[in-house]
């Protein structure tokens, strides 16, 4: 793959960059969930690996979070964009070479960023933990080049219209750049106090709300119609979804700071908008499930559909939680507890990951023109991910409620720690299951590239999935 970095754009086979992005994403997923399982082990067994500063939880937490967000999730998005954007415009990617360099610089920048976090150099701002020079690198060498390639491919499309998925891709790449510029202003200009707190959570909220959520949903808008062969149920619901994401997700940052001395009217405004994130969720879930009409057998039979529909269904509890947990009436109880950690994993490891995994399975097989090496390993991957994630989510939700009760009723901290211990072990087991499943996935995709059955011209991978 690296040999193409210096090749002329015309000499690079179409899809090369998507494969690079895809494999990078899987490797980061293995690393990110491995780090997560390691961190969970430290919480379950406090004597596990002590004495080394760079392996302490305080250093490792940020490395795990950033590896997953910018390594796994964002690189899976890059893979989907390099592959789906041109396909929907009946054209080629604007620049395979830019795509390859972008993925290369993404890996370099992320490795550098995680290294400095490991050393203990961080901004102290959650979800924006990288120091300012890494933030600037992410903006200039990672996100903007990705946006340029996506936008230029859409501009050079051979269709008159633009399919729903590409609205989200174009908007997502634009919005993440704005989020990273504005959200990191406290680091560039040393803003402090409430301004810093507000912008920190505006940044954190919108990395999820204007990048991860819409782009993950966009992938489902492609995967479901493509694999089932059904038309998307409603173009109109697509409009409702798209505009409600842009309008409602962009505003509620203050709902992360309901107990902070921000103006109360700002909290009221944000809290209403926070509940209204249910609007895009309703639109998305209804459109995808209605598109499945007549093809529900594929939920059982087809790996990509199973992943996508499962991820789509997770959007329901995700947004029910997200919409209501931020209200004044509920937030006072669960704020600062494991409930929030469970919710964040429902968003990133549940909803969005399941949609992205489907896209990577489908895209990699399609571009490499290779049938999945082992469907059994693919199925094991699905169940390990689902059981592992569910174990994690349920255990952390319970732990969060215990912490909430402990916080409100002023139970001595050590008693809360003891009460939580079984759930911390369950969390570690769930996380380890996810990590193990991802190791299987990496092996399976590697073998697919090396020894997968060739897919004949004009056939889709899922059509051949059960043919031996």
């Amino acid at each position, binding site marked *: 793959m690296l040999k193409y970095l210096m090749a002329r754009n015309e000499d690079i086979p179409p899809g090369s960059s998507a494969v690079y992005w895809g494999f990078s994403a899987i490797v980061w997923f293995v690393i990110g969930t491995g780090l997560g399982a390691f961190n969970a082990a430290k919480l379950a067994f406090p004597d596990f690996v002590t004495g080394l500063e760079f392996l302490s939880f305080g250093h490792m937490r940020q490395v795990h979070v950033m590896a997953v967000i910018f390594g796994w999730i964002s690189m899976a998005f890059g893979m989907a964009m390099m592959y789906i954007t041109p396909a929907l415009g009946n054209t080629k990617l604007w620049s395979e070479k830019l795509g390859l360099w972008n993925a290369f610089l993404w890996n370099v920048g992320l490795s550098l960023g995680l290294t400095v976090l490991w050393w203990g150099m961080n901004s102290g701002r959650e979800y924006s933990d990288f120091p300012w020079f890494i933030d600037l690198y992410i903006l200039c060498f990672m996100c903007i080049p990705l946006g340029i390639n996506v936008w230029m491919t859409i501009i050079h499309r051979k269709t008159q219209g633009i399919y729903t998925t590409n609205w989200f891709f174009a908007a997502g790449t634009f919005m993440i750049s704005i989020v990273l510029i504005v959200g990191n202003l406290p680091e560039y200009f040393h803003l402090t106090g409430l301004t810093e707190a507000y912008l920190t959570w505006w940044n954190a909220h919108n990395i999820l709300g204007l990048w991860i959520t819409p782009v993950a949903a966009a992938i489902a808008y492609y995967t479901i119609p493509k694999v089932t062969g059904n*038309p998307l149920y409603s173009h109109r619901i697509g409009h409702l979804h798209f505009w409600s994401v842009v309008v409602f997700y962009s505003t509620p940052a203050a709902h992360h700071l309901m107990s902070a001395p*921000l103006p109360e009217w700002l909290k*009221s405004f944000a809290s209403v*908008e926070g509940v209204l994130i249910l609007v895009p969720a309703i*639109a998305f879930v209804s459109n995808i499930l209605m598109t499945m009409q007549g093809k529900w057998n594929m939920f059982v039979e087809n790996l990509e559909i199973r992943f996508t529909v499962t991820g789509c269904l997770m959007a329901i509890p995700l947004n029910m939680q997200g919409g*209501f947990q931020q209200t*004044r009436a509920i937030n006072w109880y669960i704020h600062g507890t494991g409930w929030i950690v469970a919710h964040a994993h429902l968003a990133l490891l549940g909803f969005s990951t399941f949609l992205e995994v489907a896209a990577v399975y489908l895209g990699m097989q399609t571009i490499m023109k290779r049938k999945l090496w082992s469907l059994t390993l693919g199925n094991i991957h699905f169940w390990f991910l689902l059981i592992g994630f569910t174990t994690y989510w349920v255990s952390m939700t319970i732990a969060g409620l215990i912490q909430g009760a402990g916080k409100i009723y002023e139970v001595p901290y050590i008693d809360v720690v003891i009460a939580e211990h079984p759930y911390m072990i369950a969390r570690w087991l769930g996380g380890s299951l996810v990590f193990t499943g991802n190791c299987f996935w990496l092996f399976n995709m590697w073998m697919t590239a090396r020894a997968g059955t060739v897919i004949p011209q004009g056939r889709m991978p899922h059509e051949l999935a059960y043919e031996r």
Partner: protein
Amino acid sequence: MSWKMDAPMVTLSDDATTLKNEALWEKEDLGGLTEDNNPIPKPVIWLVVLTVITAFLVTAPLWGQRPTAALYQSYVDSMDKPEVMAAKDDEDAMKMIVAMNKGTSNDALLERHPLTMDDLRMIKDQVKALEAKGVDMKDYTVVGNHVVIANFEGNYRPDGTRIRQQPWWDKGYTIDLFYLSYFFLAVFLIVKRLPPTTWQPRHGHGSH
């Protein structure tokens, strides 16, 4: 691209625009994907309406506020009563104070924001000092061991001081109303520019 206003719930595009859009919709192949022109289902519309109503009701500023200094005035006063001072320990004293102050409209709030005798001791002098100044105790909130001016910016009183109390309606809600109105108007205009939902594209799938 002309507009037609005679049947806004059906379409806002004139016949020529609609025919042009229909022809494009049928012919266009977006990487092998197609889209239908189904209406937004009624249950989805009702769910969206329900969400909007719920959003305003459930976030009402009445819920989940910090306790005001006024809430604990009676507790602080009770601290100096002889029977409380004669209590065998702090726990017993606090139980007495709680029992003495039951039966007011503050019962639910006091139950939600319980205190210990240590908490009361830490805020007692601050509450007394404010009482001596003659301020409205509802303008102050209790944050941990501090009694501080509440974070609200209400109207000015005739004496020039500002009301620092949670209104049942604040300007955040007003902004929300405008924001939502613009959103729904914009989405309405966008989807109603599409061909009427009585028309469905034929994608060669037959059933649609």
